[in-house]
């Protein structure tokens, strides 16, 4: 190995241009990470303001219009700028070529354009802040047609972001088809890649529908097309059909990569093969396919017909089963393992627990009669946050810690990271569990004002967000201060390919494309049970 080749991807070139014009998938992944990190923090600040507003009924720190803008910003930034592109674009970019044994994605330049498009979309989105929309992240018509706020810019921003998402998805799918190293058969593919494949499938096939929907919404505002405006003979329920045709699969765009991350981390820290590899891999694909069939469960009280409600309810329960299978498979991976409670493992275990709560509360919402009561209440808010934070964000944090040595070539302080984890875990439950109770009691969501009897629960919830905030700051501060010394190539004795190279990897990942000869999670000794 020559001196030159040892130069890792972080050191290979300095300055703005070397990053902004790079086609190195690792650098692009890192840039995504920074970008989504910034938007995550901005959107989180909006959520802290929202929660602070609810310390008392009536106006506390902002007025009703500002509140409406804040929840729209919080929702739309978290969804379109952080969580949809989030894990897939950042860790997906960084990891997929490393995991499948390739030197880059198949269209490196397109990958860079996708990132630029992401930035362009985000910029347009930010321009909209001059007169921010107050429609909620769902942009329901006809309110979004009539409101004076700047809906056009924000939806156009989302449209551009969608384009970025599609191109990233295409890139990943083709990469995984064409660039797997010799011997990297589909049944040896790491589960993160399986999850990323399913995610990309959804990005490619669901996003264009929301794209045209948002274009038509812009057309509604410019030309008065009338498709979604009852005053012109249009049907607002149709907008919801189109919107959820994308946005339900989008929920899986958000959660699948986190499932993939947990599937990577569990075997490493339990020193055992993942339990039911095939079941998890196929469940990812099954979820991706069935998720196109359940969008109507967001619309049980929207005026959708009874027959269609019933059909969607049935299929919704069908998608619950593969999810349940995954949870039990992760759980059984621990059985008879040799478990090390690293920070990444703690986040993964918390993921399993919180995601289970998120999934189980979905059972309430899928039941027609119960959903009539619970729809558009805080119950839905809590359910969604258990899936999105307890699921995706915990998975994301797990990944941040797990691949930290590989990404940055340094180690971090595990003890402080664990304290941060405990704070975030406790804070999260304090913040969101009370919202289930508020929901069953009938507290509607998107309410600036609320009845005094809900105050104590609201206050508890707000305190919870403060605990999360402290934990998050601690986590970030800890990660920003790596320990001295270089990280070893494979600190966890992991068997997957990304750990087979230096930390951080060189610019071209592999000096020679490796040949894969074993299953990916080949941990443990082959002794029959009970032998």
């Amino acid at each position, binding site marked *: 190995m020559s001196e030159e080749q040892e130069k890792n991807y972080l050191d290979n070139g300095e300055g703005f241009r070397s990053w902004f014009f790079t086609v190195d998938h690792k650098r692009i992944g890192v840039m995504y990470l920074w970008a989504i990190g910034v938007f995550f923090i901005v959107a989180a600040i909006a959520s802290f303001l929202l929660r602070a507003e609810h310390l008392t009924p009536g106006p506390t720190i902002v007025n009703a219009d500002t509140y409406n803008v804040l929840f729209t910003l919080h929702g739309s930034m978290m969804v379109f700028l952080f969580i949809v592109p989030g894990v897939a674009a950042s860790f997906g970019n960084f990891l997929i070529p490393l995991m499948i044994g390739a030197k880059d994605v198949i269209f490196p330049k397109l990958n860079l354009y996708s990132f630029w498009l992401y930035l362009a979309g985000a910029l347009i989105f930010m321009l909209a802040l001059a007169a921010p929309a107050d429609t909620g992240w769902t942009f329901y018509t006809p309110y979004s047609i009539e409101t004076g706020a700047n809906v056009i810019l924000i939806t156009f921003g989302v449209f551009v972001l969608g384009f970025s998402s599609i191109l990233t998805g295409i890139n990943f799918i083709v990469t995984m088809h064409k660039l797997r190293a010799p011997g990297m058969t589909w049944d040896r593919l790491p589960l993160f890649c399986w999850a990323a494949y399913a995610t990309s499938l959804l990005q490619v096939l669901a996003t264009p529908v929301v794209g045209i929907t948002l274009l038509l919404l812009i057309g509604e505002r410019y030309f008065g097309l009338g498709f979604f405006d009852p005053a012109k003979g249009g049907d607002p329920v149709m907008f919801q059909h189109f919107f959820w045709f994308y946005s339900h699969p989008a929920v899986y765009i958000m959660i699948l990569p986190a499932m993939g991350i947990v599937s990577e981390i569990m075997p490493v820290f339990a020193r055992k093969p993942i339990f039911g590899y095939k079941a998890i891999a196929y469940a990812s694909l099954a979820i991706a396919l069935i998720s196109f069939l359940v969008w109507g469960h967001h619309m049980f*009280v929207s005026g959708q017909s009874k027959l269609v409600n019933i059909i969607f309810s049935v299929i919704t329960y069908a998608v619950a089963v593969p999810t349940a299978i995954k949870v039990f498979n992760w759980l059984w991976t621990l059985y008879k393992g040799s478990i090390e*409670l690293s920070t990444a493992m703690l986040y993964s275990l918390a993921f399993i627990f919180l995601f289970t709560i998120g999934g189980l509360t979905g059972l309430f919402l899928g039941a027609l009669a119960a959903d009539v009561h619970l729809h558009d209440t805080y119950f839905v808010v809590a359910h969604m946050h258990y899936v999105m934070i307890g699921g995706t964000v915990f998975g994301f944090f797990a990944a941040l810690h797990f691949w930290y040595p590989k990404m940055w070539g340094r180690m971090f302080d595990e003890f402080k990271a664990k304290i941060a984890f405990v704070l975030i875990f406790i804070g999260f439950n304090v913040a969101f569990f009370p919202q289930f109770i508020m929901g069953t009691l009938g507290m509607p969501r998107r309410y600036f004002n609320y009845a005094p009897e809900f105050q104590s629960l609201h206050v508890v919830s707000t305190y919870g967000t403060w605990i999360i905030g402290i934990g998050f700051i601690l986590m970030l501060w800890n990660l920003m201060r790596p320990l001295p010394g270089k990280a070893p190539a494979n600190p966890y004795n992991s068997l997957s390919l990304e750990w087979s190279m230096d930390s951080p990897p060189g610019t071209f990942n592999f000096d020679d494309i490796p040949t894969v000869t074993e299953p990916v999670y080949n941990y443990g*000794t082959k002794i029959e049970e009970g032998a």
Partner: protein
Amino acid sequence: MKWLPESASTFAPGVDLILWLVTIISVISCVLIAFLLIYFVIKYRRKTENDQTPAITHDSFLETLWTVIPTILCIVIFIYGYVYYDQYTVTPKNAVEVNVTAKQWLWSFDYSNGKKTLNELYVPVDQPIRLVMQSDDVLHSFFVPAFRVKQDVMGNRYTYINFTATKEGVYDLYCTEYCGTAHSDMLGKVHVLSKAKFASWQDGSADKVKKASAASIPPAELGKQLYSNKGCLACHSIDGANGVGPSWKGLFAKNRVFTDGASAIADENYIKESILYPGEKMVEGYGPVMPSYKGLLDDDEITAIIEYIKTLK
């Protein structure tokens, strides 16, 4: 701890049954998973760096088990959800219809005998009711937690809710589809009356009694009550804050400039005209969104509101 609202309709017990059923399933599954997680983590914690672990990759029996059991539970929950939903969506033959119109940000109710109320729905107990709902503008949603019923309301198309109240009392009504600035103030009450009380409300004798009691309180006091009961508060503040409509604070005797350039002093007659014909003289900077209160407020009540505005200096 109380986690369900009062149960006051024939639909509520069914919904509560499902909520209880799924809660029990959820708690059991959650405790099971949490227990196993913690138990495994303690029992199989890493003792040495060279721990031997078995390479278990699958187990057909277990995998079948945790595929079949969730499937069965899902089917059961679906069936419960479907059965009660089916009951809820079928209108009983003897249902009494009430027309509901939602608009930013109030509810108005039209009864078959020609009566009209704002934000207050009056229904007799044990009588099937069918609400025929439509919106004048954006989406709204009619939600009464105590009845466990909810339905979106939209323009140019009627949507329906069926319910039969089982308990006398006053229940909260919320709008649960986001509809703009005063979404969270688009509230109402559902008054469930005994058959006798409902009859007397219907023929107006209750109004007279109410009037009599109203007469005994000072007009400004009555105006204050009307301010919150009739939905004025959704758009007009009393602290000077600018809302959808002009604030009432310091409104009286103020010079108003209209969109057509004309102006007038906000005296008693102007305010009365604005309440009855809100579209006639639009103050600059506001849109024509206020509904007419003609037939919804009588002269005494309008006078009371004017008196109340006078007190807001």
